[in-house]
């Protein structure tokens, strides 16, 4: 009989086979700890004993809690438990209805000191790098500057345009072959065969500059161009400075993409033209943070 069942490896398994699989145990001790023992059969045919000891946390616990509440809290809560259902629930049986009430996935609230908002989020690039490293693909190395980032993200992309120029040999060897070939094969356009997305063609508008700005086009609002501000001027500083003249709709501080330091200019949009005018008159030529501010009307993009 055991021979018929070919994959059997141990006589101990045969013995178990004759017994019906145990139903599992379930008992509750005097401390209210419920112990459940379950048996499952995994892929290897081996018995796995899963023992779960957990505190009673379903209906029964709730009943206990209710009793405690009644002792502490006033009658009104207990009385409200006996109210008849009404409205759309009229006539429904007691207990939560699954159509309206479900139990969600466990969520965790970990209370700890320190400001979470100041913690940087892991960027997509970092997570990709981490997963690459985990997969054993090695480190990400820039083909231009040999830095620890993707070539596309290289800060020296413009100055070291090695991949585009025909004179530069493919430095990285095997993996740079494809782009070098394609750039050589492509007709030498003015930008050197590099793919230019339609939005960037002819004029060099920033990507998505005209879209996605909450509050609509910045030309709609009376906007001042503030120049000669110090590097560490923040949006809030300018809001404070210009807020006294009227409601400031938006403040944009020009920043260096990599370092985040200010580039020394900003745009301040007011809701009303009169307050913008007043702000310009009052602040133009004024000293601010050791520098003399220069405040002008912002020119629309086309005219610059």
């Amino acid at each position: 009989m055991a021979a018929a069942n070919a994959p059997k490896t141990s006589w101990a398994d045969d013995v178990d086979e004759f017994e019906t699989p145990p139903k599992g145990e379930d008992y509750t001790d005097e401390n209210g700890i419920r112990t459940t023992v379950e048996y499952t059969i995994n892929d290897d045919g081996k018995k796995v004993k899963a023992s779960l000891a957990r505190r009673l946390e379903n209906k029964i616990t709730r009943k206990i809690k209710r009793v405690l509440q009644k002792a502490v809290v006033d009658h009104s809560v207990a009385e409200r438990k006996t109210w008849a259902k009404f409205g759309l629930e009229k006539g429904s049986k007691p207990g939560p209805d699954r159509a309206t009430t479900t139990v969600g996935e466990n969520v965790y609230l970990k209370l700890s000191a320190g400001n979470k908002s100041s913690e940087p989020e892991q960027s997509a690039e970092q997570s990709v790098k981490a997963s690459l490293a985990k997969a054993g693909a090695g480190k990400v190395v820039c083909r231009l500057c040999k830095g620890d980032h993707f070539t596309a993200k290289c800060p020296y992309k413009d100055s070291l345009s090695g991949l585009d120029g025909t004179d530069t040999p493919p430095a990285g060897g095997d993996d740079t072959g494809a782009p070098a070939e394609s750039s050589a094969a492509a007709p030498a356009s003015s930008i050197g065969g590099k793919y230019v997305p339609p939005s960037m063609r002819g004029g060099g508008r920033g990507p998505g500059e005209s879209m996605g700005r909450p509050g609509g086009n910045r030309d709609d609002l009376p906007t001042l161009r503030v120049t000669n501000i110090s590097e560490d001027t923040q949006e809030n500083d300018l809001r404070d400075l210009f807020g006294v003249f009227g409601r400031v709709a938006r403040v944009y501080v020009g920043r260096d993409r990599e370092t985040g330091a200010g580039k020394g200019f900003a745009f301040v949009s007011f809701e009303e033209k009169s307050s913008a005018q007043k702000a310009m008159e009052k602040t133009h030529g004024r000293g601010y943070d050791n520098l003399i501010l220069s405040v002008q009307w912002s020119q629309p993009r086309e005219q610059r």
Partner: protein
Amino acid sequence: MRPILLQEPDPDHFAGHERSLTQIKFNREGDLLFTCSKDSIINVWYAHNGERLGTYDGHNGTVWTIDVDSSSRFLVSGSADNTMRLWSVETGKCLFFWEFPTAVKRVAFNEEDDQVVCITEQRMGHQGAVRVFEINRDGDGTNQSKEPISMFNPVGSKAVVCAFAHTNDLIITGHESGKVSLFDAKSGEEVQLNEHAHRDTVTDLQLAPDRSYFITSSKDKTARIHETRTLTVLKTFVTETPLNSAAIAPGKPYILLGGGQDAMSVTTTSLRQGKFETRFWHKVLEEEVGRVKGHFGPVNTIAVSPKGDCYASGGEDGFVRVHHFDETYFRAKPYGDLEIED
């Protein structure tokens, strides 16, 4: 914590329909949870197991706001159908309704439950108005006066949230411009104001249990705690997302903030799904101490049970999530032995 998810079933669809929540409120004992949303029905749930006790049917448009009295006898609601209604909490019957020229955006009981303040919207040539009504608690509640005991029109930026201050003579209002004011309930005179309390619309206003201070949240990404008497800003909580609601956790030195990017800017901002968490901030130290994830859309409204053992959040996604705090919440000492008495 395992949250209990509450959602109203849609009779026409298999999946529950998505109606965004506008306000949720616990009663004084924290055993009942009232929710209202952009469909016209108000729901009441048992907070401990999420069982729906009933619904209050009668409104004909978005229900913007609800409030329940301290004895859980009367519920008052304001709706976009230009009515304010008084309900019997126990039976779900509409006892009385008041009709206005415009939508009712906010209602609130006073501490004695004998007055209700409401804000009606500024629209169609009508000024925004704050009215105070007397609630006759004798009899079955159907015998109410149609006429407000006082009414005034705040000039300037329109009022969006309101509540009775520490006395019944004063009404706190939060305005679209970010202003927070105290009005004399009788004369409508502006007694105190803080013009620059916020830089953008005030979205929520919740009072401490003793009404000595209150918290406001705003679209300008900050929440602030103000002293009721002087409107002095005591604490400021600066987040990175527009806030829709702020609540004070009784018994613990925390406040709860909810918000999230507007739908239009979600795709352009963060890879992390939308910042729709409920944030826990330390009330005194002004630091974020924890977050709870869950909603798929901005959190519109947050309420903490007056007992401090449970909180609920209602989102744009149409779900109410009721969280009963774990033991770890009560034991946690994020700042070591530095304990702050409430």
